[in-house]
């Protein structure tokens, strides 16, 4: 968009993520908000339809819905939290997983092609919600002091190590987790998008605006590389959604665990 007019190549950077509002004047209604809202509609529509007539012998749609639901319910929630307690967290984990998944994959879908979670506000909200939930259920289970002990004093550590262990565990389990959770997702989406922009805009510039035959050839190779990177990005988008939810489930599981 910028490179098309100018003869000088302007490399993509953080400013590439500052999208103008869709309707001028309505500043809050940006592309990420639109995509996120669409993803919510798609998720609700799909799971509503899949579970509407939940029968013993499932329809194709119900089967597909159960496949997704079972993945979060069994492979994430049950494996990380443990059998009877995990059902309480399945709704949140399902919503979280499919919300992140669809918004991430949206970055690969033509015409959308923007990762919602490259805007830090979304990962922050998701991470803070996960943080509040796992701390709240931990405190409810063990009490404030008991939970603090549970999270900062690992069993089997000798007493003289405690002055060292308690601050380390407190920082890593209470303070750093929401930051790492949100930054991991954000950075992957942000960097992936920049990488694609560099390859696509750079390739286009070299092919169309450099005026050099050699650079044009490099531009073609660069654009082909961009395709491969898009494939890699699709993989990263799915993996990051999975990691975010698995870690949330694991934090909940460790918060309500009886012992380490």
């Amino acid at each position, binding site marked *: 968009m910028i490179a098309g007019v100018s003869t000088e190549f302007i490399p993509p950077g*953080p*400013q590439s*993520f*500052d999208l*103008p*509002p869709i309707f001028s004047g309505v*500043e*809050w209604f*940006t592309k*990420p*908000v639109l995509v*996120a*809202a669409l*993803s*919510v509609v798609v*998720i*609700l529509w799909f*799971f*509503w339809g*899949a*579970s*509407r007539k*939940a*029968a*013993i012998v*499932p329809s194709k749609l*119900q089967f597909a*819905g*159960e496949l997704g*639901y079972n993945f979060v319910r069994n492979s994430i929630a049950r494996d990380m939290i443990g059998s009877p307690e995990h*059902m309480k967290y*399945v*709704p*949140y984990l*399902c*919503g*979280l997983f*499919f*919300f992140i998944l669809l918004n991430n994959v949206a970055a690969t879908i033509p015409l959308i092609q923007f990762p919602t979670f*490259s*805007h*830090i*506000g*979304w990962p*922050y*909200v*998701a991470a803070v*919600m996960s943080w509040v939930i796992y701390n709240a259920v931990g405190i409810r289970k063990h009490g404030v002091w008991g939970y603090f002990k549970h999270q900062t004093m690992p069993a089997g550590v000798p007493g003289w190590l405690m002055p060292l262990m308690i601050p380390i565990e407190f920082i890593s389990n209470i303070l750093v987790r929401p930051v790492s959770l949100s930054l991991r997702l*954000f950075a992957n989406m*942000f960097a992936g998008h920049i990488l694609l922009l560099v390859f696509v805009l750079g390739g286009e510039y070299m092919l169309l605006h450099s005026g050099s035959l050699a650079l044009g050839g490099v531009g073609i190779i660069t654009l082909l590389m961009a395709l491969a990177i898009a494939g890699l990005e699709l993989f990263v988008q799915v993996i990051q959604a999975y990691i975010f939810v698995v870690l949330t489930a694991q934090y909940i599981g460790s918060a309500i665990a009886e012992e380490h």
Partner: protein
Amino acid sequence: MTTLLLPLSEAAGEETSPLLPHTAEIIFGFVFLVLLAFAFAKYVVPRFEKAYADRTQAIEGGMNEAKQAQAEAKAALEKYNAQLAEARQEAAKIREDAREQGAQIIAEMRETAKVEADRIVTHARTQIDAERAQAVASLRSEVGHMATTLAGRIVGESLEDEARQRRTVERFLADLEASESARQAVGTDG
């Protein structure tokens, strides 16, 4: 609407940090996640879990039914076997009874036959005795008469005296009886 920490538009031309969030996105993120979690908790999860429970129940119900049918078949077999054993026992008892009854009947018949035979024998003997006595009596009177007639003819004279006549016959018969009984005694001894 303004953002929390910085203006959204790049009109200012400043380098905006990607680590600073927009207020609108935080609000929407929260609303969307809560909405999704609520929808899953309220509708999707209960429906799927109900389907799973129904499925489990259907499978377990089928298994229970099969188990019940098996138990019923086993009970029927046991009942049949018990009836068979009872019938066998009863047949054996009937056979035993029949044998006993048969033996009893034979014994009774034998007894009856013996009594009848005795009775017939006794009756016959009595009749024979009576007939013999009659024969002896008639023979005695006839022989006396014939002998007297014969003797009258041989002698040529009438044995007028009735008394004499009777005495003679009596004497003769007594002699005859005496000689007969003597011969009988010899026969018995011999």
